[in-house]
């Protein structure tokens, strides 16, 4: 039976009227006229009428030509999506009008062009899509966009932001934004995050950033540097946190006033974006854990790069060091980061650290492991020389680490 078919169902001694939605676990799900869904035996249904064409005439949203031009590139995040309750599928709502309807208030901030780059769940993101994304953003900025918003699922949003940070040297704001609570709920954070990211995208910022709730309150969004941010909670609105530095700015709500810190890279109006989108995909990442078998490291044989999240200042057990050395000798660039997430790697304090350095491991400074991973892909996409790669990894390119460590936590 087709979704939307008008049916009656002989049930509980009466005829229930409703709309057939779908089959689930052997039951027919029908929406009663009261709005409630129930699951009943499919044999009780009889068809009254075929599905009605329920497409409500959706209003066109007027764009104000006097406002700055922004581009929205969608990768399939929930921020502007709509769930089709009949099929359970997420439908793409990605024309400019769809997004302006989903986030009322955007049309007062800027005029928008919108592009659907992908409609995927965040965990299905790939380096190949990062490359297309960086290219699209670059094209939009070259095309006159004052800023670009990238809507993205939150789970791997920070990876994408870091990847684009390295692939694209941008003179204009590139703002990654998502929502933690689905767009179909009245309490969704998509409106506040969406409006705040638009405000950030027309601001004086000139780098890749992530704009999300700053606290559980609806009072301000934080602007995080794209290479310094991490999702730190599965479900809270303020899951995104900056590491090793304060957020580079805030957007107050509902005023949408943008405040940038001294650290924030500023907009460079007369500069063209520079794209270097090649990535080496043969790069891995692994976490060291007590009792780890060296086999795990051996499995990365043939990889051009490997990021290890070591313990504390950046350590692994002695047997693992031997395997790492074999990898390095075979030409793999191995970068050490820390599971601590906060703080800098230093392999010169303890013996195992010195052994790691002797084996040829590159210290990852204060880079977050996933940032080091993305950076290593990019670096190895730019050079085949392992020494040059090691030098680039130890050089801050997009503010991914500082020379001196942050005085806070």
């Amino acid at each position, binding site marked *: 039976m087709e979704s939307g078919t008008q049916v009656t169902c002989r049930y509980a001694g009466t005829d229930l009227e409703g709309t057939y939605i779908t089959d689930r676990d052997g039951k027919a799900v029908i929406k009663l006229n*009261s709005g*409630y869904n129930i699951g009943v035996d499919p044999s009780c249904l009889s068809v009254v009428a075929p599905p009605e064409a329920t497409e409500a005439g959706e209003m066109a949203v007027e764009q104000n030509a006097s406002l700055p031009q922004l581009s929205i590139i969608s990768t399939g995040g929930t921020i502007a999506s709509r769930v089709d309750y009949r099929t359970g599928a997420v439908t793409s709502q990605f024309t400019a009008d769809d997004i302006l309807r989903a986030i009322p208030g955007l049309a007062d901030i800027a005029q928008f062009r919108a592009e659907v780059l992908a409609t995927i769940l965040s965990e299905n993101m790939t380096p190949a899509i990062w490359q297309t994304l960086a290219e699209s953003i670059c094209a939009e900025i070259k095309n006159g966009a004052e800023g670009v918003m990238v809507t993205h699922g939150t789970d791997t949003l920070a990876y994408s932001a870091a990847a684009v940070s390295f692939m694209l040297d941008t003179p204009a704001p590139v703002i990654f934004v998502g929502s933690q609570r689905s767009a179909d*709920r009245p309490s*969704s954070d998509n409106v506040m995050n969406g409006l705040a990211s638009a405000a950030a995208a027309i601001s004086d910022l000139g780098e890749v950033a992530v704009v999300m709730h700053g606290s559980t309150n609806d009072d301000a969004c934080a602007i995080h540097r794209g290479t310094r941010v991490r999702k730190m909670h599965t479900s809270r609105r303020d899951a995104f946190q900056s590491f090793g530095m304060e957020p580079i700015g805030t957007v107050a709500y509902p005023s949408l006033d943008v405040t940038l810190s001294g650290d924030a890279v500023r907009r460079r109006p007369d500069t063209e974006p520079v794209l270097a989108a090649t990535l080496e995909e043969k790069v891995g990442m692994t976490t060291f854990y007590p009792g780890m078998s060296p086999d795990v490291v051996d499995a990365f044989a043939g990889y051009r790069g490997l990021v290890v999240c070591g313990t504390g200042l950046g350590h692994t057990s002695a047997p693992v060091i031997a395997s790492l050395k074999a990898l390095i000798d075979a030409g793999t660039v191995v970068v050490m980061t820390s599971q601590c997430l906060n703080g800098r790697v230093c392999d010169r304090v303890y013996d195992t650290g010195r052994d790691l350095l002797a084996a040829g491991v590159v210290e990852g400074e204060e880079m977050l492991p996933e940032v080091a991973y993305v950076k290593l892909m990019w670096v190895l996409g730019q050079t085949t020389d392992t020494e040059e790669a090691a030098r680039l990894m130890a050089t801050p390119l997009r503010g991914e680490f500082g020379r001196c460590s942050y005085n806070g936590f």
Partner: protein
Amino acid sequence: MDFEYAKLGLKAGIEIHQQLDTAEKLFCHCPTVLRDVEEHTGEFFRYLRATVSEMGEIDRAAREEMMVMRPFSYYAYDTTCLVENDEEPPAPLNPEALELALTIAKMMGMTPVEQVHVMRKLVIDGSNTSGFQRTALVSLNGSLPTGERIESICLEEEAAQRVEGDTFSLDRLGIPLAEITTAPDMHTPKAVHDVAAYIGMLLRSTMKVKRGIGTIRQDVNISIAAGARVEIKGVQELRLIEEVVRREVQRQVSLVEIRDELLSRGASVDEESHDVTALFSDTGSAILKRAKAIHAVCLRGYDGLVGREIQPGRRLGSEMSDYAKKCGVGGLFHTDELPAYGVTAEEVTALKEAVGAGENDCVVLVADTKKKVTCAIGQIRRRAEMALEGVPEETRKMLEEGSSAYMRPLPGAARMYPETDVLPVPVTGAYYDALVLPELLSAKAERYEREMGLAASLARQMVYSRRCGLFEEAVSRGVKSALAANTLLGTLKELSRDGANVAAVPGEALIDLLVRVETGAVAKEAIPPVIRALAEGQDIDVAINTVAPSVSREEVRAVICATIAERDAFVREQGMRAMGPLMGVVMKELRGRADGKVISELLKEELGKIV
């Protein structure tokens, strides 16, 4: 005021919302306890906005709540979690709550839903952090012994409780509620009361529903033939339910009369409104003087009707004011009530002139910021035009004593969409068949009368008491029903009235005490002072020793010997026949502090030595 309800075509139905006394909330594992607001451990604030339903519409009730965007504050506790904060997906539907809801359904002969689907019902008045209330239809079509039909039972999550203004407390959010909806089968106010009372009794019979004010709330749906369906929310006291129905009928009758009068006058509502701010630049009215903008609209032919009472304390003007308040204004003035509130007769004349009002017209004015005033005038015009139609369909809230005020339009099905985060729950026939039904309190009261010989009123009081479970336990442990009932109802009530904290007495201690009284270890007269000591936190043994020290076997023997010695002649004359009379004397002497069996045994022994 009473009406001929049959003639008016009164139809009423009720929705009863009953909090269930489960260990955990409906969609998280937090306890279902209410807290003092002073105990809150966190506070946060959020905005809500209406979203488009799966059918592509915004619900009309939700749209109206959106007219003013306001921040809602929430108090969090150490007994609430991220689910209440709307920061974590819900846990699976609480099986204890579902079982209870289905048990209630079975008690009314309903058919369970084979697969229960949790829905989201849009509510953006701030009472739910998510902006929706989770609710699931669990059973359909039952009936009461008196014939009224039960349409459905839904299992819902309780909303957050308003602390004040737009601040809510999260302790109540998520407590399971059974929502029982009757068909519109009641035709008199009394019938509504009786059905509500019966369902209340049935719910209490499960012994697993919350007790106390606010734990059961009735929404009443009322219409008369010439009126329209109106839902009055939140009637917390059964005693007010008849009055609510009576007053709503009165309101609908009055609104129909006003409509007829308006139509006969050829009344209409002016399309344009007037900025009359300048007129009141020197006014003595504090409200008007403060306002940035004052707008007025002329209602042609409405003179005298806006000020007409339609319910005790309520006028057509109050209804317009309710609508206007949705825009954030404090209220309105109309010429049916002016001059008053510091507005002079001269100002009224000038006002009427400014808007071109004639003798039959009523002018309504609103004062606030320009934005709010513009919105409010629109709402006033809307409500005034509705008066030409008669009774608008709407959701109303109950005011003290049974009148009501406008809340929002009746919501439609557009406010319901599936809760995609909770999996459907199957309900099999075997599961439903296996549910054990509790004894109805009405049947239990009859049984207490029949089997235990309690007086009818005492039996009824006992089954409705919170201590009914204690009573049953005491009786099962050999305590006579009258002793148990009188102690648990009468004695406790008296002590409580005298200021003893009887709620602090553990049930087990009460039963223990009753058992000791029954076996003669403690005198009946000692019950009140012992309970008083228990209420002060004393251990039961300590309490009894202090108030009514128990008597050792040897002491009993000594009392018996002394008694026999005093009645030496009588004993020698009567022989073992003296046993009965002496028993009474000894019992009196010991004031019930020793077990009758022990006394009888020792008395027999001592008499045997002499006879």
